[in-house]
């Protein structure tokens, strides 16, 4: 799909090294045109993927991705990069497995190494009943053709010898659930890889262009207003991660979303130390090691609505406590940087992909903690929805009106959070 001349390969690297021939731009820096068939708001992983799939799968190429800053400036470039398909609920299991399958072919498809590292994710259980809950999930995975292994304490000790198995540990490790195909993906590469591939198919990637409003004709959206002028659009999709409410509000829509801060952390780079993705069972905490060598970890949201994109210190401390509780040796390692992303949170923890009450306006948002792993599938489903003005079969359960019907999709069993954090 990508012209030979600009293909990436070891050979191409050698050729460029020897000849000094310049590389092509990864994507053109496009100025907005007056009109497009489809405009996608938000140059994150999802928006770029949707643009790519619109062009690649549906042959729609008069497409623009409108990004207010630089592509990848949102959560796709600041998340903890976990991908997995260990999901329990009907709908989710298939959706995330579809996503993982797409990840497995993505570097080839995009001709851009997104560094999918299937190093395996282990979710820990700290007591028998927690292990039963994991077992239920593992069984569902197996029944859906997804790899899953139940681990007892001895298995976990063999795989992760550096966890705290001592008497001192507050929440002893009882066992876990392993998905070997789960792992990490290089976050920035996802944005760039999709952008480059979409660009090659004619998609305009417009950076530094902020959407400020919608152009409406009755109950139909026919374009957007931006700080670089009005752009007419046959169909428009909102895919702006933590800002879904704000952009939807420009169209007069109120959505079941709050914006919260989620922090992420990285240590100084060290030689290989943690070879899996590990999820603590006692609290929300997960850790893996980036290819560059930093231990990357994260925890819970900070716990109050905010658009500040920076976290608070108490959360830094409680996340560090989890880190040491899990891996005592990490105490000696040093935190290099921590940052935050603005994340849509929904009442049931599940996202929305689909149509909105306004015609020709589509929403992909509400991704909570899980949008990165969903990127290929979300892009794929959003593209389908835009192309067919219909929900993708894999995303039917993610409709915007599900709460009206009582169809909440609470994967984690956390319950509604109207008054609690």
């Amino acid at each position: 799909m990508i012209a030979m001349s600009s293909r990436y390969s070891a050979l191409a690297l050698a050729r460029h090294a020897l000849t000094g021939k310049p590389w092509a731009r990864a994507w053109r820096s496009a100025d907005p045109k007056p009109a497009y068939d489809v405009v996608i708001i938000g140059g994150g992983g999802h928006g770029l993927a949707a643009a790519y799939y619109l062009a690649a799968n549906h042959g729609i190429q008069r497409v623009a991705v409108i990004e207010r800053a630089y592509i990848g400036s949102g959560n796709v470039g600041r998340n903890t990069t976990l991908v997995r398909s260990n999901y329990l609920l009907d709908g989710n299991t298939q959706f995330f497995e579809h996503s993982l399958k797409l990840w497995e072919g993505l570097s080839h498809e995009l001709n851009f190494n997104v560094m999918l590292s299937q190093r395996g994710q282990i979710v820990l259980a700290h007591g028998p009943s927690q292990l039963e809950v994991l077992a239920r999930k593992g069984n569902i995975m197996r029944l859906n053709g997804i790899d899953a292994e139940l681990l007892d304490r001895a298995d976990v000790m063999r795989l992760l010898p550096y966890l705290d198995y001592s008497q001192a540990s507050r929440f002893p490790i009882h066992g876990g659930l392993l998905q070997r195909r789960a792992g990490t993906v290089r976050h920035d590469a996802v944005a760039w890889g999709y952008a480059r591939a979409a660009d090659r198919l004619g998609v305009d990637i417009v950076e530094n262009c902020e959407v400020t409003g919608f152009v409406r004709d009755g109950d139909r959206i026919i374009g957007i207003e931006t700080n670089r002028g009005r752009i007419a659009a046959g169909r428009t999709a909102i895919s702006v991660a933590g800002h879904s409410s704000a952009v939807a509000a420009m169209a007069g829509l109120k959505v079941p979303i709050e914006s919260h801060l989620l922090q992420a952390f990285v240590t100084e780079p060290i030689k290989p130390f943690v070879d899996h993705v590990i999820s603590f069972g006692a609290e929300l905490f997960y850790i893996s090691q980036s290819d560059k060598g930093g231990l990357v970890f994260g925890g819970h949201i900070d716990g109050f609505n905010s658009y500040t994109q920076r976290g608070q210190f108490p959360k830094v401390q409680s996340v560090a406590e989890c880190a040491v509780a899990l891996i005592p040796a990490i105490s000696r390692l040093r935190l290099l940087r921590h940052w935050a992303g603005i994340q849509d949170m929904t009442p049931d923890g599940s996202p929305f992909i689909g149509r909105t009450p306004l015609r020709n306006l589509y929403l992909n948002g509400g991704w909570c903690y899980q949008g990165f792993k969903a990127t290929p599938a979300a892009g794929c489903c959003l593209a389908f929805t835009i192309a067919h003005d219909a929900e993708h079969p894999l995303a039917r359960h993610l409709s915007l009106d599900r709460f009206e019907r009582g169809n909440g999709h609470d994967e984690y069993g956390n319950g509604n959070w109207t008054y609690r954090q």
Partner: protein
Amino acid sequence: MFERKPLLGFAGDTLASALLANGLTLAGRSFKYHRPRGFLAAGVEEPNALFTLGEGGRTTPNVAATTTELYEGLVARRQNAWPSVDFDLGAAISLLAPLLPAGFYYKTFMGPRRGSWMWYEPFIRRAAGLGRARHERDPDRYETRHAYTDVLVIGGGPAGLAAARAAAAAGAAVALVEQDSALGGMLLAAPATGALEDWRTELERAVRAMPNVEVLLRTTACGVYDGNTVALLERHDHERPDAGLGKAREVAVTMHARAIIYATGAAERPLVFGDNDRPGIMLASAAQAYLNRYAVDPGRRALVATNNDGAWRSAIDLAVAGIAVPILDQRQHVEPALQDAARRVGIDVRTGALVTRAQGRRAVTGALVAHNGSARVEHLACDLLCMSGGWSPTVHLTSHTGRKPVYRDDIGAFVPGGYAPGQFGAGAVSGEFALSAALRSAAEAGRAAAHYCGHADPIGPTPPPQVADHPFTLEPPRACPRGAGGKAFVDFQNDVTTRDLALAHEEGYAAIEHLKRYTTLGMGTDQGKTSNLNAIHLMAALRGVGIAEAGTTTFRPPYTPVSIGALAGRSIGHHFRPIRRSPLHDCHIANGAAMIDAGPWLRPWYYRWAGGDAAAAYVNEMRLVRSAVGLADISSLGKIDVQWPDAAEFLNRVYVNGFASLPAGKARYGVMLNDDASVLDDGTTARFGEYRYFMTTTTAQAAEVMSWLEFLLQTAWIDLDVQVVSVTDEWAGMSIAGPRARAALALALPEIDAADAALPHMGAREFEVDGVPIRVLRLSFSGELAYELYVPAGYAIALWERLLERAAALGIRPYGLEALASLRIEKGHVAGLELDHRNTLDDLGLGKMAARDKAYVGRELRARAQLQAPGRWSLVGLECLEPSARLRGGAILFARGEALAGHGRGYVTSVTWSTELGKYIALGLYQGGLRHAGEEIVCAYPLKNEQVRARIVSPMFIDPNGERLHV
């Protein structure tokens, strides 16, 4: 010890100065190309000289030698090289450099097959990473604490000292933090004797003498957070931390300041020219610091290359110390006074001279110098090349709360883009590079900060410094001419060169954030302290835009890396989270209980009297309860005292079932919903008096329920006069259950009339025994005749012991959580695994409880279509049909003969061996629920390749009519 060889240094030395004093200039190997590297800086900005310190569990990788204070017994090793830094095979990678430009990995390692990256990745991972960490437990102690002050001054340079003094003089309480081991900042690099040093000492003495100033050395302000909250890291490595004595290695301080003064100074930048990374090439200010502060000759034959006035000071000091110094200033025009001053000390002054390339490999041996307006390239020999590309104010902290720094042309650097309320800048950080101006700004900041805290009147002005200083000028850095050869490093630690910048530009990664992410520039342990600004300058030039437009990347905490141990403090091991213990805890231990975590609680899982492990013990405990009488601790239940006239109405609103008519002396089981109709909790509430109720909640939801009730009363139903008080800690609870429960009570507590008439099923009464109130609720979770006894917690052990002792003849013994949970399964009572927020009242078979004739929380949304749909999964009982197999929690249910794939028709929630029925039984949810009663189904557990046949039955496995409750 340095690499197993002893090394001598002086007090006050850093590892870097000691190594330099010992003639060691090769500090390590670079990240990617394994190039030999020396010491670039003398402080926190050091990108190269990273060492691994300590041994065993104290191994700490990636520590900058320039910030490591020497102490007796320090063990240090160089890293990222094999077999050694002096002879590093990894250096061969340099030969491949052209193949490995920035981001090369995005372009390759994709073949031959899908997933091939998994083959390459281990090599990349091993090559990446700097030092090696150990898996051993860190033996050191860390602490955290909170501190409050009026004015926090960050930085103990001249500006910080002056600001602290001014603020304190105005009456404010001041905390002054300095990351270094000494106060003085840049002045520490000035000659160790002379007027300036005298003035500094005097200022330091004056500040330290003020009673309202607290000086914290070796304390770094790592991050500034909302609310003028600053995270500080106090370090004590130099004091030989000793966990056994309680001496912490590091303390993370949460400092709550009214006002903050940033006096964080500025850091010098390198120049960018070919092979500018050779050992022996260092920042001019660093050379000056090694010379003056540490009395180490960083070289014998120096060259000073600069584009600004700052480095002239360094050159003069070097010359005065007898080190030959030509100074090469790229500017054609340099202040004549400065030139004269330099010439006076014998410096060979050359203006319009640009270093284009360094020479030497493992140490610098010289430089090629181009002269303005001439094609001539001169070669100058040296063993020390000092460079200065200008000064970057340390704007990291001021940026942490989201204020982007702004560019100032006159100093060629970014300064804070404003300050949050109550925050002020002083000295070099605000772009005041001349000492006198820095001090003026500091005095002003000090006064303003004190004023902000409500201290108005300065006691007296700070004496002005008697120091000569120069206005500061600079020429923006120039890109080194193309074709000069060598690699010109911009980011030393991550081996990012000008070629990488050009490549990023060519490929469109030209936005400053894309540049960073594509090349990893500024992402190392030094966070680009020496590289960011050069990169911005160079990229702006490539793009042909102004520097302000190019912008900076985002500064994030921590300012310098922080041990994760320090952040965790004492919240480690069993202190990770507090443990909640029942008032009966000590009894359980004495009674041989195996304890288990239940949220924050530790609860008795099973007792060793009944068996050696849970599986063996719980069935014996069940048998005891079914056949005789057992005693269980239920103190962890949430308990809420509900009082006042509107209490009945209140309860009637929060429970789905009616409570308005609950008479005094009775208890009732109730279920609460959330607004969205999901089940919040279940429990019983007893009425003890006209206006007094005693509510119990589940252990898990106790805090949630309490907050929820308060929320409703304080925000929505403020017209209701109801008081709720948590009494979970006041009352201990125990359940005495079994056919002999009444007999046991009669033996142990004859004062209590537990006759059926006095205390019928669901009866609730208060008694007093020996002056101690005891609340008795005749409720049963197990299905047997049972009483819940509540007693003020201090008497719990006495009551428990009395019950066990006096009823011993009836065979009474304690039983644990596992048996408690199993007994209720036999009775079909739902609990934690069923109440998982996804299941509705109706799913749990409790729909009938909901009153039709009154409103209750969650009623409206409960009526939503999907929640009432016929095919929902609802509560069933399951009995195992295979004698040799067991049911398992988490098994997935399928109809008989159906293909075992997908999500099935339900799942098993809770399983037990039924002592009554002699088989495994379970609760589960199944599509259509009890409409399928009697059907045989399959419980699939593919994780263990198991399929077990079971039958759907009523979840009330035993005594469906509740006869046992009424014995």
